[in-house]
Structures are given as C-alpha cells and as structure tokens.
C-alpha cells in the first residue's frame, strides 16, 4: 500500500497541480506517524479534549431479545457526539505542524464540520466548512454549532446540493489555496494519502474495542458491524481486527430499497469508477444518491472498503431508511441510547445478524448520537 492503492482501488487521480502537494502531505503524514512527540500530543488531546477511551457497553436488553451478545463501542459519547473528532484532531495537529494556518472541510450531516470547527478553535486555525444547501436545511443545529465555534459555513448550491457537491467545492478551494490551507477530509475517501491517514486516525476505535473485548470477555467478537457512508468509522473498527477471526459487516444506506433507484449503497449495488481523486465503488448513473441520513448520502465509498469487498474480507449490505428508523427507535427504547440515523443502519444490521443466530457475539460501532436527528424522528414517529 506504499503507492496509496488498495489492490488497485484508491490512488491519486488528481490534476497535476494537486499531485505534488498531496505527495508532500503523504510524506508529512508518514513522518508524524512515526513521531513519538506527535503521537503523544494526539493521545493527550484524545483523552483530555475528546474523551477517550470510550466505553464498551454490553447491550443486555437487546442481547436478551435477540439471543446473541451485542456490544456497543460508544463513540457517540465523544466530544461532538461522533467518532469524527478522532480524525479532525489528528489532521489539525498535522496541519499545525506543517505550518498551515487554515482548515477547510466538507460536511454532510454536519458532524465532520462540527468536529473540524472544534479542532480549528482548539488549535487556533481559521476554519471554513463546505456544506450542501440541502444538508444545511436538514441539519441547522450543526450549522449553528460550527458558526458558534468561529467557523465559516459556505452553502453549496450546485449539482445535487449534497455531500458530493461540498467535496467538489472543497477540492477547488484546496487547489486555489494549497500553500496555506489544509483540506481536512472527513472520511476514508479522496486521493492518497487521505484514505490511509484517516483510517489510521480512526483505528483507535478498533484498537480500544479489541482490548476491551479481550478484557471483558476473554475473546474477540465473532462479528464486527458498522455503518458505511465514506466508511471511516467502519474502517476504524475493522482495520485493527483485519487479521483476526472476526467477520466484518458493513451497513450502507439502502435508501428507499432495492429497485427504487434511490440509495447510497455503492458496495452492495455499485460499479467501479473514478471519482473525487480515487478509484472505488460508486453508485451507477441511473441511481439517485439518497439516504435518510445525511452522513451516508454519498455516491462513493472509501477504496479500502472496495478492496475488502472485492477480496471477500467484509460483507456489505444495503439497509433501507425504514429499517434504520426502526432500529433507531428500538435501541432508544431497549437501551436508553439514541443512535445517529447513520449509526442506526449498523444497529439494524446487527439485529438482523443476531436474529439469524449465525454469530454468538457481535460488536457494533455506535459511531454517533442521534440528537441531531430529532427533527426527522419527530416527524417520522409523530412524537
């Protein structure tokens, strides 16, 4: 993977002017990855600012109901309410070391934008966030949070006014301002080095969970489950367990269901394409990208997931909006934990796996909390 590809997926498909800066970023990252002082600084921020380690929660009620031991890795308890902060602190520290004074980021649900605004405020970096108009509309609270922390939020109205369009706008900003700006990519997507860098920053999830499972139960789980939009929380969980005897399940945004032509499930139902600087799986041209959760509403996916799919290391399925909403409600009622709608896709998949009885213990990455989704939930459930 030294060349930035994952069995042919990934790479750096970018105009030549971005090639050199990205190569430098990759080299700068390789240096800090081995730097004890950098890792110590990051660890300190993760512990004192973000709230690591996060607990591993045994979901007793859910487990009893479905007859398998279900463990939840509580990333929703992190500062900001999602796993996103693991990555933004890492990259913002890297940007600071590289002498950049400005951060830009794309955001879908607003979780990554918020986590970037937090890191920007903490490390005193100017921060600008690109967000599709459609998402600004449905995630107002996060827009307010970002602004309150001093970030500028740029509404993107072009194209579908969603996450993919925000990525395009951020890439342009990066091209214009490469000398003083770090593009803080929010998931394991885009050109090298982003997929491997973001993966490494998120791997703290799987590393902790691995130890916690061994401490708690004396063994690793039979299965690990996570939702997959770009795929950063899933890779963060999977990567440290990749050489273990643990089955991986990724839950994509199945939108309105099979045959509806409206989903965000490129792994389950896509094709190989080149998009946003990487070769990966992308939904086909006849499909409109859609998911009830803004954070999964992305036409592509991280190239490492494309590889995991191709080699059969992980199984990816589409979980529909309705299935996710049902799991959202069920976890809230049974465990007193309101998951993000993105996360609910993973919860739905875990419940389905528990029901089949195929696995005795299932570890779910509870990647984010659902406070931001209250409006959607209130409308859907008539609360």
């Amino acid at each position, binding site marked *: 993977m030294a060349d930035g590809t994952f069995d042919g997926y990934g790479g*750096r498909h970018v*105009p030549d002017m971005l090639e050199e800066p990205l190569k430098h970023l990759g080299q700068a990252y390789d240096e800090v990855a081995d730097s004890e002082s950098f890792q110590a600084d990051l660890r300190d921020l993760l512990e004192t600012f973000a709230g690591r380690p996060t607990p591993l929660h045994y979901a007793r009620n859910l487990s009893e109901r479905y007859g398998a031991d279900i463990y939840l890795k509580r990333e929703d308890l992190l500062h900001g309410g999602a796993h996103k902060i693991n990555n933004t602190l890492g990259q913002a520290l890297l940007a600071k070391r590289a002498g950049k004074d400005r951060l830009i980021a794309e955001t879908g649900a607003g979780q990554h934008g918020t986590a970037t605004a937090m890191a920007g405020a903490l490390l005193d970096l100017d921060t600008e966030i690109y967000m599709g108009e459609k998402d600004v509309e449905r995630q107002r609270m996060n827009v307010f949070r970002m602004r309150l922390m001093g970030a500028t939020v740029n509404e993107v109205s072009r194209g579908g006014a969603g996450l993919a369009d925000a990525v395009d706008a951020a*890439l342009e900003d990066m091209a214009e301002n490469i000398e003083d700006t770090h593009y803080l990519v929010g998931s394991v997507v885009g050109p090298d080095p982003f997929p491997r860098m973001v993966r490494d920053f998120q791997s703290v999830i799987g590393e902790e969970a691995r130890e916690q499972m061994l401490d708690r139960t004396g063994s690793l789980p039979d299965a690990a489950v996570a939702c997959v939009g770009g795929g950063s929380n899933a890779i963060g969980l999977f990567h440290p367990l990749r050489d273990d005897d643990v089955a991986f399940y990724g839950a994509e945004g199945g939108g309105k269901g099979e045959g509806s032509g409206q989903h965000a499930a490129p792994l389950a139902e896509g*094709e190989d*394409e080149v998009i946003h600087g990487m070769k990966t799986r992308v939904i086909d041209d006849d499909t409109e990208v859609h998911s009830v959760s803004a954070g999964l509403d992305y036409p592509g996916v991280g190239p490492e997931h494309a590889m995991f799919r191709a080699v059969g290391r992980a199984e990816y399925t589409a979980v529909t909006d309705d299935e996710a909403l049902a799991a959202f409600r069920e976890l809230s009622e049974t465990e007193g934990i309101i998951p993000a709608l993105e996360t609910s896709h993973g919860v739905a998949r875990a419940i389905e796996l528990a029901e089949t009885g195929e696995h005795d213990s299932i570890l779910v990455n509870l990647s984010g909390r659902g406070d931001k989704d209250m409006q959607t939930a209130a409308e859907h459930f008539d609360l």
Partner: protein
Amino acid sequence: MSRISAAFADGPAFVPYLAAGDPDYESSLSYVEALERGGADVIELGLPFSEPIAEGSTIQGAIVRALEAGMTPTRYFEFVEDLDVDVPLVCMTYYNLIYQFGEGGGPEDFVRRAAAAGIDGFVVPDLPAEEAEPLREACDEHGCELVFIVAPTTKGERLERIMSQVSGYVYVQARLGTTGARTDLSGRAEESLERVAEWDVPKAVGFGISTGDHAQRVIEAGADGVIVGSALVDIVAQGVERGDPAVTVASRLEGKARELKEGALRGAAANERPHPERT
C-alpha cells in the same frame, strides 16, 4: 506527422476550449465552428463530467449547462461527427468517463469510438502519469495523441514520467489554482516552460489567458501555443444570461478568437526580430 503536430508546425498555435453542448447541441456546434473561423489551429473540446476537480466557476457553469442539455459520451461522439471543422480536435475530459465507456474497465472502447468520430487526441486532467499506460496504448493503437498538463509544481520523477508518455503537445499550466480567466498572468509560465524546454513536443501555455496581449506575452516567453478556455466560455455564459441569439454569440466568439490568434502572431513576430545588442 500527425494532424496535431502539423498544426503546431508553422507558427504559434491558438488552442481554444469549449464544452461540447454548451448551452445546447445546435448552438454549441456553431460556436465551435466559429472558433475555427477565428483562427483556431487545434480545438480542445470538453466532454462534460459531473464531478470535475479543480475547475473554476466558469468552466463548471459550462459543464452544468451542457449536462442539463443532455450531453453524454455517446451524444458527444455524434457532436464531433456533426462538426464541420478541419482543425484537429482534442477531447478534454475526466478519466471516469473514458474508463466507464462501453464494456467498461478500460479506455479501449472510448478511444476507438472517439477516433472513429474524428478525435485526434486526449487531455485528461485527473489521469496520473503513473496509470496512463492503458490509455497510452489505446491512443497508439488508434492513432491519437495523449496530451498531459504540467503544473508549476510538477517536478522530478513525475516530470520525467510525463515526458515519456506525452505526445501531440504539452499543456503548460501557467499558474496554480483552478481554471478561469485572469487579468494578470504570473511569471510562472516562464519557469514552467524552462522545465520542459528540452522536450520534443510543442509547448502550449494555458490557465488565465484572456486577451490578445496575454497571448502575445506567452508566445514571447517561448511557448509554441496558447490555450484559452474560460475567456471564451464567459462569452457563451454571457449570451445565455442576456438571451442573445446564437449567431450573435458565435460572432463574438469568432472576434475573441481572432484577437487571441493575432496576439499570438504578434508574439511570434516579436520573437523573430533580432534582439538589440546589449552593451
């Protein structure tokens, strides 16, 4: 000698860009033809892709208009066949469309179809030179050129790899940033030209050129050609905004093309005058 090489052989080449199908199929045909009347030597004809990287707002506008008017790769090839121009055509697009076309999984189908339609070469901004081999081979097989963009930041091994792959001409990017017409030109064109001075392909400079004076200066700096996109697309966009008839827009494009070509010719003439002796 290929048609593109021939276009650079006598005098400076003026290489305009327009997106095919912007703002609609019929108007766009007449706009591209107007560029030839205005003196184009090679035409870069954009095939719009929905996820461009690092295009400025002008070119993006063109891409959106063309896509909304129904441009697709298949339609693009019909467009090329319907065009009544004699100058060589270079297809400018993103790798995904080339990779996806036909059976998919490789550039062969796309290049074969493009060559049959009358395309002479390709320039693909997001194609890394490291992964150009399949496209290079398809181009060789179908008698097409493969143009590469060299950025102000390109150097070392990357530069050498591009040198070994490039044919037709090298697109020398005059400055960093996204595409778009500018009122000033950075001095980086000279530096960039220096780095490719030894290459045995013509050097065409682009990014930000919008006037005849710019064109002249670029040729005086040692370029063999000037590439102009956004300044021309601006004229198309303005026509759409004002609701001008296509024939008016075509004649403006022809006029702008002539200004740019004449600027390039002035630059070449200046280069031929003996330099005054310095004492």
